[in-house]
């Protein structure tokens, strides 16, 4: 069984259809880069996977749990699926340590004594152990985003979703975040990334999915999709982002 199974997913905002019959399977260990214009439904698809957006049609199954079913146990699901947002969304009133350990303490009930160890562990993975007692507004954008990744890692998810996480960053800060992503990928994490970083997609992704007008327009191996577009829409898109 695949880790993620989308079958005929339809998502509408009012009369506007944002996802139109989207089907996709993601296997364990895969790294999927989702590309496409803004408004093509990439972020919405991601948000449907962890139940932040309810769907109007089709089914979303993650790790055996039917997310799209009415009484789905989203709380249990979200302990297994992490998401990192474009705008970091750290909790500004909490230190880095508390940001990271809030959910493990409250949701998983880990003992407060081991919480700091847990925070240190994940912070080392993103290279920010020395910032454990800092507050979010004392960190650069890139550091905040790395803390957000650490916060997500602390829940030990089976799947991580990344929603354009470098789009709000200056180019020189993008690199440090991508490096962390690459390392998480190397550890074998299953990842779905919505991204505009084509170089990164080509280097790291096992599969690239191009979305257009709410549909999966093209998909395949990273090289094949990015170098030999079969549809004029993808060719135009690549032309626009690569030049």
């Amino acid at each position, binding site marked *: 069984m695949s880790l993620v199974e989308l079958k005929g997913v339809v998502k509408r905002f009012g009369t506007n259809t944002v996802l139109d019959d989207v089907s996709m399977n993601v296997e364990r260990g895969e790294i999927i880069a989702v590309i496409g214009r803004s408004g093509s439904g990439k972020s919405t698809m991601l948000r449907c996977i962890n139940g*932040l957006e309810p769907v109007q049609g089709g089914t979303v199954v993650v790790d055996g749990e039917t997310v799209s079913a009415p009484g789905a146990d989203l709380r249990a699901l*979200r*302990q297994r699926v*992490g998401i990192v*947002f474009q705008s970091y969304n*750290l*909790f500004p009133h909490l230190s880095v340590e508390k940001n990271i350990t809030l*959910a493990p303490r409250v*949701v998983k009930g880990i003992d407060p004594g081991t919480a700091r160890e847990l925070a240190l562990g994940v912070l080392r993975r993103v290279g920010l152990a020395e910032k454990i007692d800092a507050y979010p507004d004392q960190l650069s954008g890139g550091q905040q985003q790395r803390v957000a990744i650490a916060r997500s890692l602390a829940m030990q998810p089976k799947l991580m979703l990344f929603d354009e996480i470098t789009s709000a960053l200056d180019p020189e800060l993008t690199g440090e975040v991508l490096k962390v992503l690459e390392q998480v990928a190397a550890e074998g994490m299953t990842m779905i990334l919505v991204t505009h970083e084509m170089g990164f997609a080509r280097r790291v992704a096992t599969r690239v999915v191009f979305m257009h007008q709410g549909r999966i327009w093209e998909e395949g191996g990273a090289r094949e999709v990015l170098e030999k577009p079969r549809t004029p829409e993808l060719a135009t898109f690549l032309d626009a982002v690569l030049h």
Partner: protein
Amino acid sequence: MIREFAAIDVYYLLLAARWTLALTALAFVGGGLFGIVVALMRVSPFMPLRALGAAYVNVVQGIPLLGWLFVFFFGLPILASVQVSSWVAATVAFSFYAGAFLGEIWRGCLQAIPRQQWEAGAALGLGFGEQLRHVIVPQAVRVAIPPTVGFLVQLIKNTSLGAVIGFVELTREGQLTNAATYRPFTVYIAVAAIYFAMCFPLTQLSRRLERRLRVAR
């Protein structure tokens, strides 16, 4: 018999100011409890709760405070055959009134926290109550302090309306003193000065708290 306005009158006014403060305190505590419930109802994901909270606020805010004092003082004996003292009627009416206003103030503060903060909490598996408690409320409290203290100052001044149902507080004591001394200007200047002495420190406190919370995040 008209007598002079003397130090003893100031003393009586100060004694009466205690009842102004006591009524304010009771109304603030009662109103705070109502207010918390109303604010939570207004941001809850359940439509009927939101509607009920909104209805309460609209009804209370749409009727003058004086009206509520009459409703509880004269209305309860007629409608429910319960005699209530002016203490009870004033406390209930002011709590009722403060609950609606504090509820609205606090709802606004909860809603001032960006939606993404709720979402970040939800994405980590926190339930609605946990998101509120650990993520939203701690941030909203800081936003809430200045308007809450501002309302508290309003409340102190509004308790003077309690006089109409025979509740003797600062303003009512001022009227009584004036009747005995016939020195309206002096008496009401004294009354005003006492109100100012109660309200001004609160406003200052609010500024200080606001500054301190900003530094401590």
